[in-house]
């Protein structure tokens, strides 16, 4: 069975992000979410500085691409912030977290509309299963704390 390289990388991302679900809980069990987020950000910057030598020799980077990639970081972290805010504003974790995990739906719509992506029939079925699975996986047993993305 041939496993495409993109899928291997996607599974590596899944694994790392999955582990952060545990470390994030261990952190917020000990300190406030805000302090945890700050140190999460410090680590992100430290990692960025660590990989910086790998990109310094790269050629020209268009200003538009630069700012869109920076905006990507802001969108992602702001999303984490609004997911915390939904819980803060009285949303039940058992509803808010599964609801937030429907975000791939929007990506799919945008990818088909603007990136002109097409899907095979098995992939379409897989996407439906993945969406249902993501919602079910984020519904924790009563009494356990909720987990936001990364």
């Amino acid at each position, binding site marked *: 069975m041939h496993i*495409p390289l*993109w*899928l291997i*990388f*996607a599974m590596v*991302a*899944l*694994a790392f*992000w*999955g*582990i*952060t*679900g*545990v*470390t*994030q809980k*261990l952190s917020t*069990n*000990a300190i*406030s*979410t*805000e302090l*945890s*987020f*700050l*140190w*999460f950000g410090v*680590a*992100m910057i430290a*990692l960025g500085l660590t990989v910086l030598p790998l990109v310094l020799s790269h050629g020209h980077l268009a200003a538009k691409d630069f700012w869109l*990639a920076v*905006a*990507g970081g*802001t*969108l992602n972290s702001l*999303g984490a*912030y*609004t*997911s915390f*805010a*939904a*819980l*803060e504003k*009285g*949303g039940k974790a058992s509803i808010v977290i599964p609801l*937030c995990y429907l*975000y*791939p739906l*929007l*990506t799919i*719509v*945008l*990818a088909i509309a603007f*990136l002109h992506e097409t*899907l095979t029939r098995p992939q379409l079925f897989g996407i439906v299963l*993945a969406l249902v699975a*993501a919602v079910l*996986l984020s519904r924790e*047993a009563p009494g356990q704390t909720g987990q*936001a993305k990364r």
Partner: protein
Amino acid sequence: MDLTVTATPPKAARKRFPAWFVYSLLTILLWGVWGALTKALSADIDAYMNQVLFSIGVLPVMAIVLVSGRLAEGVNRRRGIFYAFITGVLGGTGNIAFFKAFSEGGKASVVVPATSLSPLVTVILGYFLLKERASGSQKVGLALAIAAIYLLSL
């Protein structure tokens, strides 16, 4: 998890929908757009450069959190900071793999649903490391997630 927020949803939206619902939709919007945007950029920016720029993008949100005035230390500052830092390193490394998946030809409409299954790992690790029991929903979700990953690879 809780976080103080000073921004409020638009007045019309507040009247019709509860604030938590509006924030949840905002989350879907922000994360959903991020997935497609990242794929669109993958042709021009490599994974490492993307992570460098991503970390710059985190700064404004760190500033919002800083001024929130809720940086309570908690019950075990050293332990909490250690795990927060580890979360950032692992999350950023996961980001690089996510960016690589796109630059290797993965479609946003497939990679994003696949990686949204990361709670699969969290649930399994939570069971073994934190002795958390999986809910019935999560057990069904585990089985569906494995089937979904197989189908997405076809």
